């Protein structure tokens, strides 16, 4: 293990953090339990939530600390209570710790004090809990519906255990059920962006309130494509099967999600993964980063009409796709990662293949960067556009290149070394400007780093087994798994259950933490830049919008509002 990794993963360092929290809130802490190597769960009363979470997240010394994920669970079958757990990660090369602040909420009084006022980063989490579990965050600034479709009836909470995953409540789409968008500020016009818009690769609605071309304020509506993955994962898939749906949460960061899930289960089930498997996982993750970043850079060019850059980026990206295909048998959904290891080994000839491709990649990409950065019009469009201040990035707990472009210096690969990263050396590029150009540069530099990481991994890759046998996973153990997806940290929270099934599975894609900060980045820019800014966030809608049981067919039915089609699609969804 490398020196830097040893320093971060040092027991004493970790203890320090936990102890400080315990000392600060002494008797108000009900229990402290270490549920995994780097994860502690601290149980408190719901009244103390804002204070405790706020204290840790806004701690003056722990600079890059942030709210990683938050999961609500319906634990009534177990304890007759709902539970909430806020997972906070300590970042910034200071120590590898995840703190889970857990609290229970009685069934008869499903309310809790909102954390959002002290830390906006909790904004979406708490709205989502309200939608899916009916737990009311009190004092939340924006209690509008977030996840459920507009015509979903009140009082039906899909993630409660008494809601079967095939249920589909009666819904009709009327004017009353329209989404309560904010009224435009005085003297502004509305510039709706999406859900059907050429420059948005996936549906999402951004309501720009504009003065002429200038964006004054932004309102948004997402979650057009909920696929009920969590519900399905909890109800009808086995641990192993979940891996494959996890991989399909997102079209781009498949490995990241599969890996996060696998690591979560491994942490919960205390499964040791063979070292070679860890290396292979690392290589896969980096390959994914390569093609994802190139895709994003290409799209950025496309959105400002610079098609040469767009086409070249995709041409170069094709090498990576081809590589992925040769290594795993598929361009995107690799089917590589599985609980306990990986499914395919790297044989020698593939190894040389990788090395050749990387060589080509490096020089061609370097050419691309030079060409693009020497295009004055490109720079003109990107420089000083869509600035996200460090403060905002921190406020909203933003992650990934989006946050690193604004000077936030953290990266799950370095701060919570998973897979084989602890054995490797790499830099984490950070830019302070916070504009689109900064993000592009971060991505470009990360591509170079990834190439370097893969090369190291190939050199140092040990021999041996690639899959660990595992028999039984003890029920009702909680853990989070985390990876640095191309777009930032992916966190999967699992609570194991009986009968080879999960009890609760909470997916947090990186975009989920980035989206809420988008309005801050957009304000004051012009309509022309809106699309570019969205692209520079590199949004992954489908990752973000996985929750709740609504089939795509059904969504379409809602839009068309045709009864029979709804009926038909209900049948379809039953068949699933």
């Amino acid at each position, binding site marked *: 293990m490398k020196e830097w990794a040893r320093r971060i993963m040092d027991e004493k360092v970790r203890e320090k953090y936990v102890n400080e929290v315990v000392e600060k809130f002494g008797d108000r802490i009900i229990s402290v339990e270490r549920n995994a190597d780097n994860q502690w769960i601290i149980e408190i009363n719901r009244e103390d939530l804002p204070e405790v979470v706020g204290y840790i997240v806004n701690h003056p010394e722990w600079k890059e600390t942030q709210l990683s994920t938050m999961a609500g669970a319906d634990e009534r079958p177990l304890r007759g209570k709902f539970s909430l757990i806020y997972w906070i990660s300590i970042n910034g090369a200071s120590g590898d710790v995840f703190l889970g602040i857990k609290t229970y909420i009685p069934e008869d009084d499903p309310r809790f004090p909102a954390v959002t006022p002290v830390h906006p980063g909790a904004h979406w989490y708490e709205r989502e809990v309200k939608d899916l579990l009916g737990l009311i965050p009190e004092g939340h600034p924006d209690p509008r519906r977030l996840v459920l479709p507009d015509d979903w009836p009140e009082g039906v909470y899909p993630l409660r255990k008494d809601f079967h995953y095939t249920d589909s409540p009666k819904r009709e789409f009327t004017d009353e059920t329209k989404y309560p968008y904010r009224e435009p500020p005085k003297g502004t016009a509305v510039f709706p962006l999406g859900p059907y818009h050429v420059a948005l690769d996936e549906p999402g609605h951004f309501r720009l309130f504009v003065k002429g071309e200038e964006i004054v304020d932004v309102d948004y509506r997402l979650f057009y494509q909920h696929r009920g993955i969590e519900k399905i994962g909890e109800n009808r898939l086995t641990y192993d099967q979940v891996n*494959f749906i996890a991989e399909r949460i997102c079209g781009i960061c498949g490995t990241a999600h599969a890996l996060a899930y696998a690591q979560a289960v491994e942490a919960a089930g205390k499964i040791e993964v063979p070292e070679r498997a860890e290396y292979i996982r690392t290589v896969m993750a980096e390959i994914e980063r390569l093609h994802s970043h190139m895709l994003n850079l290409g799209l950025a060019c496309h959105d400002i009409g610079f098609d040469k850059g767009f086409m070249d980026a995709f041409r170069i990206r094709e090498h990576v796709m081809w590589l992925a295909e040769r290594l795993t048998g598929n361009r995107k959904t690799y089917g590589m990662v599985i609980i306990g290891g990986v499914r395919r080994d790297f044989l020698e000839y593939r190894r040389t293949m990788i090395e050749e491709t990387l060589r080509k990649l490096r020089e061609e990409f370097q050419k691309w960067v030079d060409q693009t950065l020497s295009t004055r019009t490109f720079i003109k469009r990107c420089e000083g556009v869509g600035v996200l201040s460090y403060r905002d990035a921190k406020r909203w707990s933003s992650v990934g290149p989006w946050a690193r472009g604004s000077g936030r210096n953290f990266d799950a690969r370095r701060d919570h070394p998973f897979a084989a990263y602890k054995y490797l050396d790499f830099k984490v590029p950070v830019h302070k400007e916070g504009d689109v150009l900064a993000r592009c540069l971060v991505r470009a530099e990360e591509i170079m780093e990834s190439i370097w990481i893969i090369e190291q991994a190939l050199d140092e890759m040990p021999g041996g087994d690639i899959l660990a046998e595992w028999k039984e996973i003890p029920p009702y153990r909680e853990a989070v798994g985390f990876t640095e997806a191309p777009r930032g940290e992916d966190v999967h929270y699992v609570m194991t259950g009986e009968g080879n099934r999960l009890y609760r599975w909470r997916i947090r894609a990186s975009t989920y933490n980035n989206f809420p900060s988008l309005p801050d980045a957009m304000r004051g820019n012009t309509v022309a830049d809106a699309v570019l800014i969205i692209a520079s966030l590199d949004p992954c809608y489908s990752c973000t919008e996985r929750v709740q049981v609504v089939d795509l067919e059904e969504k379409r039915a809602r839009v068309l509002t045709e009864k029979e089609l709804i009926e038909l699609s209900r049948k379809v969804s039953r068949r699933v």
Partner: protein
Amino acid sequence: MAVTLKYPFVKLEAPPEYRGIPHIEPRLCIGCGACVNACPADALLKIDDHSTGTRKIVLDVGRCIRCARCDEACPTGAIRMTRNFEVATLDRSDHVEVVELRLHRCPNCGNYTDYTERALEKAFQILPEGLFDKEELRKKAILCRNCRRKLTVDDTIEASREVVG
């Protein structure tokens, strides 16, 4: 020079590692249903009909996610990932493959068992030599569970008689 191709007019070869759509080789399939259990997407179904004594293994490529779990699970290598990726069609039924096998019938009571004849044969094939008395085993194994139990009980009674008598 252009790197793109005039695709539909030029043939594209997928690499050897490619996971295309799966295909069941009916001659090899023994209808054990291991693939059906492994499939995360319910692309494979096992449909038994005890009245006619048939078992259908149904593969719907339309639901397949190309994870190749079936490939790993199959004991006889009957189901394999091909390198074919062009699945576009006007008729969904083109996506469905059905393998129909006969269920084993108990020579004694005449009921159908819940495993196929081929599965039985396979079981005999992979049996290591010289462990058991083949004939004896075969006599027993071809019976259905109930008959086998009955036979065992009868034999015991027979034996005890001999002991008593």
